[in-house]
């Protein structure tokens, strides 16, 4: 009566049903725990943000046809306790510091850029304390210059679960930073920069 395909089908059906029930249970408890820990209103302190602008001429730093492009780097202090983001379904937390700003000419053009990010896989490393750290990425604007802009600096996080949906959120700490005007003589002090372009 029982054929090979029938048996295979029954076994796989059973396996899929069990796996779905277990996954749904895990995802439900995961979300319940996140809300219980109030993770969507975690606080952070971003302080001492110091912008620095220089010119780059490589395509990999936003330059088009070798035209010099303003690149922005910042140094900052950060204190954020992300321990509540870790529970039994948290595989990794990706934490990133962004700046958002509007175009000076048109209010319908807006941008958001990442200055710094970090992958946290252990609960013990989840309290991030940084002093005078340099941003990982050099930032340029898509069309315009990056100098003389008001940036809204925020810390965001993203949880990758072992199974289920990705969770995104931001911390309540927020800082405003105004980038300075680019001064030509300050660039002269530095030796002419050669960018690596492969």
């Amino acid at each position, binding site marked *: 009566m029982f*054929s090979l395909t029938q048996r295979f089908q029954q076994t796989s059906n059973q396996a899929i049903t069990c796996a779905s029930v277990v996954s749904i249970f895990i995802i439900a408890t995961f979300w319940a725990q996140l809300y219980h820990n109030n993770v969507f209103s975690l606080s952070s302190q971003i302080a001492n943000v110091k912008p620095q602008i220089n010119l780059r001429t490589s395509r990999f730093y*936003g330059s*088009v046809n070798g035209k010099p492009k303003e690149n922005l780097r910042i140094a900052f202090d950060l204190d954020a306790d992300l321990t509540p983001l870790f529970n039994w379904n948290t595989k990794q937390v990706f934490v990133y510091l*962004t700046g958002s700003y509007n175009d000076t000419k048109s209010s319908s*053009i807006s941008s958001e850029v*990442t200055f710094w990010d970090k992958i946290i896989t252990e609960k013990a490393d989840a309290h991030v304390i940084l002093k005078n750290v340099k941003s990982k990425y050099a930032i340029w604007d898509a069309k315009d210059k990056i100098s003389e802009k008001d940036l809204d600096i925020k810390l965001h996080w993203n949880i990758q*679960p072992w199974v289920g949906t*990705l969770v995104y959120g931001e911390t309540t700490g927020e800082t405003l930073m105004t980038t300075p005007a680019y001064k030509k003589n300050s660039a002269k002090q530095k030796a002419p920069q050669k960018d690596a372009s*492969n």
Partner: protein
Amino acid sequence: MNIRLELTRFLNVCFALASAFMFWKGLSIVTNSHSPIVVVLSGSMEPAFQRGDILFLWNRNEYSKVGDIVVYEVDGKDIPIVHRVLREHKNENSGKQLLLTKGDNNAGNDIPLYAKKKIYLQKDKDIVGTVKGYIPMLGYATIWISENKYAKFALMGFIGLSALLTNE
């Protein structure tokens, strides 16, 4: 040999294939993405995603946000890439958005991966979808089958044998 029985069996196989195809295309319409479920092929997003993980995509969002994990395709290469959005520049007048992406596990951003001379992706043209959900490892079977010819033969053999051996 019963012709009627053979035909019914054939019809059942067709039915199974057609419903699988319908499910896939239906999911495509709902998510607005031409491939709503993808299997991770590279380790550039480790430890978030490993080779063989299954990702569920959604492409009905108008703009991407920084931190979103997106799947994109580059002109001239047919391998979809799963990376995170590092920057976005959106223009609400034209509805266009420029994106710069980076793999969490890569040292630098994706500009060297983009089509020639490009330094941005376009949300409406290049993005296949944004990752919403995740199942670990189950997709490894598809990688195994597509990269190992013996696995392909074994699968075909198993299907053929079971078709021959079944008699209800």
